């Protein structure tokens, strides 16, 4: 098992070195081109943002990108389907198509400003998410088939890499924070969220990949799921703790319900903190790596190259670690919130303890 992990770690190292080389070679001309027009900030922001096409590389004036479907819903025109390539003009710039235009921030807008639309396009992030979901399905359904076939045999191959992590989520995240009796109903959510974030964090580190977990819409939805699960499984005690917090002086509750207001806001700040933490950490990592590489072009000197490569390599290693840590933190905090939602009354617990002691 250990040998397998080190093998995979070594593979990861090789991949990240390869990735850096790829980023440098593919984007050299891109940098050179962008120097004429926008600044490095635009370049970096372009890389970490969602897009209606999947841009892979630029060689001189040749752009290599995968066109993605653009889906628009509007009340007057219903569902409309286009390909993002139809929005490109001969200079490879976004232009108008069928009454819609994609602006310089990669937002789809109707030309007629009075119309309101919903952009349901399979953007770069959605496409990347679909890829990661297919990967998740392939990996975990094949692993689970092995478990189904021989539940008693020791883990093998991919199973031996994933089993310690699954056990880690169960034994170190779920059970200590939610409790032995109730953790089982949260396990599917915790495992899904953990592996979804982890896989996407890692995929985001690949060259040309989308910055999915560094997108605030994605992290917002994930944390809203945590909020939804918390409220759905919350018991009476949870709400008592919010509206009539025990152990707090009465004048904090009456006549001005200061404490209940603070606690009530807390319900929403918890998922919000999850949203921002994941988004900021992953986006920051991407910005740092891109900035380190941009240094070569800002200084316009080949001598910076080795420094940037070494520091970029170092940052990539750190990002591999961060990919795991952020998945872990998101899952851990979700588990803690679930634990608070299903926690039993403290007095009862004390009583049970006494009964237990008396029985012993």
């Amino acid at each position, binding site marked *: 098992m250990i040998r397998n992990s080190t093998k995979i770690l070594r593979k990861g190292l090789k991949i990240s070195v390869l990735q850096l080389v790829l980023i440098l070679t593919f984007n050299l001309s891109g940098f050179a081109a962008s120097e004429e027009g926008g600044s490095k900030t635009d370049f970096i922001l372009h890389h970490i943002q969602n897009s209606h096409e999947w841009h892979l590389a630029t060689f001189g004036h040749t752009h290599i990108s995968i066109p993605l479907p653009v889906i628009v819903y509007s009340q007057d025109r219903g569902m409309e389907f286009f390909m993002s390539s139809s929005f490109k003009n001969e200079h490879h710039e976004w232009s108008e198509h069928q009454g819609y235009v994609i602006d310089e921030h990669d937002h789809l807008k109707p030309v007629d400003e009075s119309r309101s639309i919903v952009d349901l*396009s399979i953007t770069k992030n959605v496409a990347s998410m679909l890829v990661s979901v297919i990967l998740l399905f392939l990996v975990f359904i094949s692993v689970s088939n092995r*478990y189904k076939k021989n539940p008693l045999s020791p883990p093998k191959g991919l199973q031996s890499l994933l089993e310690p992590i699954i056990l880690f989520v169960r034994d170190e995240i779920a059970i200590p924070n939610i409790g032995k009796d109730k953790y089982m109903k949260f396990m599917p959510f915790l495992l899904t969220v953990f592996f979804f974030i982890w896989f996407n964090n890692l995929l985001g580190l690949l060259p040309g990949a989308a910055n999915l977990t560094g997108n605030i819409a994605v992290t917002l939805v994930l944390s809203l799921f945590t909020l939804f699960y918390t409220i759905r499984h919350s018991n009476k005690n949870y709400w008592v703790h919010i509206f009539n917090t025990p152990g707090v002086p009465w004048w904090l509750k009456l006549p001005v319900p200061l404490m209940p207001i603070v606690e009530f806001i807390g319900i929403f700040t918890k998922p919000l903190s999850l949203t921002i933490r994941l988004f900021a950490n992953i986006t920051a990592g991407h910005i740092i790596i891109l900035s380190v590489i941009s240094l070569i072009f800002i200084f316009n000197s080949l001598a910076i190259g080795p420094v940037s490569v070494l520091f970029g390599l170092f940052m990539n290693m750190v990002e591999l670690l961060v990919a795991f840590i952020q998945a872990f933190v998101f899952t851990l905090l979700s588990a803690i919130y679930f634990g608070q939602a299903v926690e039993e009354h403290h007095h009862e617990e004390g009583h049970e303890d006494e009964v237990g002691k008396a029985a012993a």
Partner: protein
Amino acid sequence: MLNPESGLIIWQTIITILVLFVLGKFAWKPILGALKTREDSIAEALQAAEKAKEEMANLKAENEQIIREAREERDQIIQSASKAANEIKEKAKEEASEIGKKMIEDAKASIESEKNAALRDIKDQVAELSLQVTEKLLRKNLEGDKAQKQLLDSYIDELKLN
């Protein structure tokens, strides 16, 4: 960058529900179930091993008990056997000595009776001889002195020869 896109929110929600459903049904349920089964079987196996160990110890103690008992029994058997042998030997000796005594006594008795019979015989013969001698003497006495004396000597010679 800080504005969540509505399209992505909708897609993310749909996909997350899909992933939760598919992985929950086809991956986590069997995996967690299998892990539980495996852990239970390991715990069971450990318990069984502990039990077997205990049984083994019990069996060993039992065996020792049996061996000890067998040894005791053996000792007892040997003891009683040697006792019986001794007794038999003693008895045999006693019987032998008794038989010997009886034999000796019988021999003695028979010797005595033989002796008595012999003595009686001798006495009879002596008496008869004496009678014969006396008779002859008496007869010769009647024939003369010389002859008497001759006769007497010859008888005496005869006696000597006897």
